[in-house]
């Protein structure tokens, strides 16, 4: 489908421009906030000379434009610099922490779509009936609290008072799983450790639901509203007068057209999860990018700050592109923007 390629190409190009902008911005901001990174890294007992040496090594005495030039030059060589906090390449650090965050966000996103859309469709089909009211109240509840509040509530209810789920972490410490993809759900399967898979899955449930709940509510409400609007369309009256079954109409002929307007918002919700994940990770001591991000900001670890922000922005943009492609995929009007006949 050539139109999809054009969309992809355009979006990749604008994303690239956005990333350049973001890099400039975060590069400047990281350097404006007070504190001398070299001094913080070496500690209060280091000699003035040692601090001066480190500053020179990091090109901190040059103008910010020259510094940015060095940064871009290294970036083009796949190098985000060394973290002063971990003394390892920033890229290596991110490679270690990002998958945990992504795993959480992907599972939460999946839960949002897999539960929110059907709930909305069911509520619309049984509009005004008991089940509709139940779903509407539940979804209102979902959107009424931010995810870190849900994280605390779920943790208290299902890990503390009713100790069904683990209270923190990604997996029980006794398992050692070789990191291949960094996604524990995949790595455990690759290693053939099915008990470890179950354990990792069990750890994921509370944080993923905490992250997904408001999205579920949002998706259900949107889908319901769009479905109800769609039910007034002539093509639904047509489907009814041709005797298409109510089930087929609810799950197909009214569902797909309603999905199109919902998708954009659901995509935005999904991307917003990347940000919300930081707080949920903090509550559940999830070893994701948030812990690393907070630590490097407190230490004014310039390379790590810039690297973390850039990677998160890139992930955000990629998610957006994927959502746009999905929208093009379900909406033939975008796929075939030319009129035949």
């Amino acid at each position: 489908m050539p139109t999809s390629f054009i969309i992809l190409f355009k979006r990749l190009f604008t994303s690239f421009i956005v990333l350049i902008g973001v890099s400039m911005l975060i590069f400047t901001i990281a350097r404006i906030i007070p504190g001398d990174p070299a001094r913080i890294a070496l500690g209060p007992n280091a000699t003035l000379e040692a601090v001066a040496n480190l500053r020179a090594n990091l090109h901190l005495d040059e103008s910010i434009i020259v510094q940015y030039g060095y940064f871009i030059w290294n970036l083009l060589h796949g190098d985000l610099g060394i973290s002063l906090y971990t003394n390892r390449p920033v890229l290596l650090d991110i490679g270690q922490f990002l998958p945990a965050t992504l795993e959480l966000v992907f599972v939460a996103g999946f839960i949002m779509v897999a539960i929110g859309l059907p709930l909305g469709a069911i509520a619309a089909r049984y509009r005004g009936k008991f089940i509709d009211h139940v779903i509407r109240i539940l979804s209102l509840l979902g959107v009424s609290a931010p995810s870190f509040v849900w994280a605390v509530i779920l943790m208290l209810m299902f890990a503390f008072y009713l100790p069904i789920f683990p209270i923190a972490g990604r997996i029980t410490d006794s398992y050692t799983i070789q990191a291949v993809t960094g996604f524990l759900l995949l790595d455990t399967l690759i290693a053939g450790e099915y008990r470890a898979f179950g354990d990792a899955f069990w750890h994921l449930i509370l944080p993923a639901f905490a992250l997904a709940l408001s999205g579920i509510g949002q998706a259900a409400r949107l889908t319901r509203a769009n479905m109800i609007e769609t039910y007034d369309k002539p093509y639904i009256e047509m489907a009814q007068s041709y005797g298409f079954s109510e089930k087929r109409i609810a799950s197909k002929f009214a569902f797909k057209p309603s999905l199109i307007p919902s998708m954009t918002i659901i995509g935005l919700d999904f991307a917003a999860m990347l940000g919300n994940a930081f707080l949920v990770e903090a509550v559940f001591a999830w070893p994701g990018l948030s812990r690393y991000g907070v630590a490097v900001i407190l230490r004014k670890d310039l390379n790590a700050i810039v690297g973390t922000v850039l990677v998160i922005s890139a992930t955000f943009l990629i998610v957006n592109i994927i959502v746009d492609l999905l929208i093009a995929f379900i909406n033939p009007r975008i796929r075939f923007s030319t009129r035949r006949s």
Partner: protein
Amino acid sequence: MNQPTLNIENLQLGFKSHVGMSKVLHGISLNIRKGERVALVGESGSGKSVTARIILGLLQTLPTARISGVLEFEGRDLTKLSAKQRHALRGTEMSMIFQDPTSALNPVYTIAVQFTEVLRRRQPKLKKLLAFEQAAAALRQVAIDEPERVLNSYSFQLSGGMNQRVMIAMALINNPTLLIADEPGTALDVSVQAQTLDLMHKLVQEHQTSVLFISHNLGVVRDFADRVYVIYKGRIVEEGATQLLFSNPQHPYTQALMSAVPRITGGGIPNIPDVSDRYSDPAYIHPASGGEL
């Protein structure tokens, strides 16, 4: 066995709301014989579409609708059928053509997908490939030269006239006994509308399909229908063979209508100002119409 395809007697309809009942149909009677093309004409809001929706059994599912009267389809009492039995008639024995073909087709599924769904009403196990072939054959019947291309298109990729042909083919593909056409093609331009109506005329004649033709447009009705009912504010005011009714309208409302229409371009029905209380005179039934059994 001169059983009518459709027989309606004293059909009443009201909508309940929190302010009370609003009556929409005040006891209309109407019948259509096998292979007969009957028009129902009247101004906007007179109750044409609700009549169609009652015949299809769609309005019966609306909790606010209060319906009474005789409704017989091929001698079967529709009011005694269960919701499921009524559902079984839709898309098989009865089908429908809508005012705006482009918006009556689903914008996110190809024509082929929708045809397959319609065909499966009669042949539930029908394979996709066979459905495609049957649909293509039906499209050739409505003078579409490249049915494969049309079947693989979406409604927004086709012209209004093309969509109208698709709708006609879809409505007739299961060989229904009764076709209801609610202002078919009013949304199309006049020449395209005339063309597609000719096609429809030819096909229903071939298949001996009974048609309830709902329209605003007296010119079109005159060409298409064997017999005409004039409806005014939920009451039938005149009924008769097309020729007779047009040449010799008897009811004051019909007369006002006929004398008003020539002034309106396109022959659409104007809303006649409610000047005469004679508009609520009892219905005039032309004797030669043969409408009574």
